[in-house]
């Protein structure tokens, strides 16, 4: 690339006195002075959360009210800061969802470690963990900052499901098909 020397225009007398520029600057700041504030009054006013926002990770239920996590522990393995800890267990007999092999007995996410990277959401084969809108967490002890399963499910709520994978598998099994 060739270097093109640009000749700077010499400043005019008015420019060298600074005064017109200062006057123009004063006019700009005056316009800002009368403009309404651009800030939000935070605790009362909350910012609009854009879609795809990565807030705190949560566990979700499907529209039938079933908790979707099957405690495969992929998220636990992928989590870079090791914030997730899952104790897998069997789904109790007769709960109406025992066609799902496993469920988490305990599911803890330490929010002091979580880095909101979203890898857990990405890796989840069940679409059970989502980083949702929650961005403001506070607590006075370390223990308080660990979200347990109940809290996570409560924060996550119910999300629409397109697949109903386990229901379809059960239906296929009942219809005698070896493989759906």
């Amino acid at each position, binding site marked *: 690339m060739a270097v093109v020397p640009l000749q700077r225009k010499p400043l005019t007398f008015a420019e060298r006195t600074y005064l017109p520029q*200062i006057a123009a*600057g*004063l006019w700009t*700041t005056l316009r*800002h*002075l*009368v403009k309404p504030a*651009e800030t939000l009054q935070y605790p009362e006013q909350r910012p609009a959360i854009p879609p795809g926002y990565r807030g705190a990770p949560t566990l979700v239920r499907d529209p039938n009210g079933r908790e979707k996590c099957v405690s495969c522990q992929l998220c636990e393995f992928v989590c870079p800061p090791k914030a997730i800890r899952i104790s897998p267990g069997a789904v109790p007999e007769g709960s109406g969802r025992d066609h799902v092999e496993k469920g988490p007995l305990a599911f803890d996410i330490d929010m002091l470690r979580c880095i909101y990277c979203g890898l857990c959401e990405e890796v989840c084969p069940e679409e059970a963990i989502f980083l949702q809108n929650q961005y403001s967490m506070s607590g006075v002890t370390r223990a308080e900052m660990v979200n347990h399963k109940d809290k996570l499910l409560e924060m996550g709520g119910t999300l629409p499901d397109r697949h109903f994978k386990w229901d379809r598998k059960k239906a296929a099994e009942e219809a005698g098909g070896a493989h759906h």
Partner: protein
Amino acid sequence: MDVFLNLPVLVQVALKGLAVICVMFPIAGACSMAERKVSAWIQSRPGPNRTILPVFRWVPVVGPFLQKLGAFQLAADGLKFLFKEEIVPGQVNRLYFILAPVIAMIPALSTVTFVPFGASIDHAGRVFPLMLANVDVGLLAVFAVASLGIYSIILAGWASNSKYPFLGAMRASAQLVSYELSLTLSVLPVFLWINAPGTAGTMSLAKAVEFQSQAGFWGGAWFIITMPVSALVFIIALFAETNRQPFDMPESESDLVGGFHTEYGAFKWALFFVAEYSNMIVGSGVFVLLFLGGWNPIPWVSLATLAGWLGIAGHPVLVGAISILIFIGKILAMLFFFMWVRWTVPRFRYDQVMEIGWKKLLPLAIANLVVYAIGIALIQK
């Protein structure tokens, strides 16, 4: 009034001093809040608007309004400064370290006494100024006492015994001495014009206002109209003398942490700020008196004319109150201008400050003086 004049001199002096302190401290505090508010508005944010006294929470309209205005934040800040731990760092020279904020208060509060803050019309129709100490050399007195303010900065910087305060003090002393020249030279044309041959010579600020309240086109014109260059040089030098941006070299927090007050905290630090604001108030007052017609409402309309229109010419107290209101209004406008400029013009580099002072402002002030001296000599021949 007579009751006051019959008191012993020392009691009078003490009362006047108390009045100055009681007026200047709250005004300076209010200025700090105004500064925060104006800077917030210019930066499109609301500024301090949370603090409220529990009692005022239940006052319907006034309470929220004062809260939005940050009035209670002011009280909270003041109380915080009072009750905070007074830390004196170990490496400092204790005597001068503690003395410096005290010295800052001396010129800040005593210059106020030389500034006439209003006027009234007695029953004979004569206009007389309202001021605490009526000396013939008014302006000179303000300049002389204000020039002592430099010692507080120098001593604070030296006594702190640490590098940033020291650099701040160095800059301050060079800057203040440099701009004092331009400041003094810029007001000379005004007094050349006032002191026509054959009249008794005066440096009185009240006389300058009196001169701007005469009848006729040239009589009623404020000096900012007839002497714009003087006014410009004066206001620039005033910014430098009061250490306001773009000339706040002694503090310039981006390169000197806090400048001369880096090592200070709590109430000693607050005293520096009260001093700075009260210097600003006095400086604005002098500018208003010299160039903006003092207590005359608008150019070519004097206070006496206004009193005639309102039909209150016979009430000295009413006229006095109105004149004080007009004068304070103008000072507030000037203070707003100070804050407005602060958020508009970025800080100069130190060598630029020196260059502007010595190579631009001083020659301009001298040329202005020579031109006006010749012009005035020709007119008043």
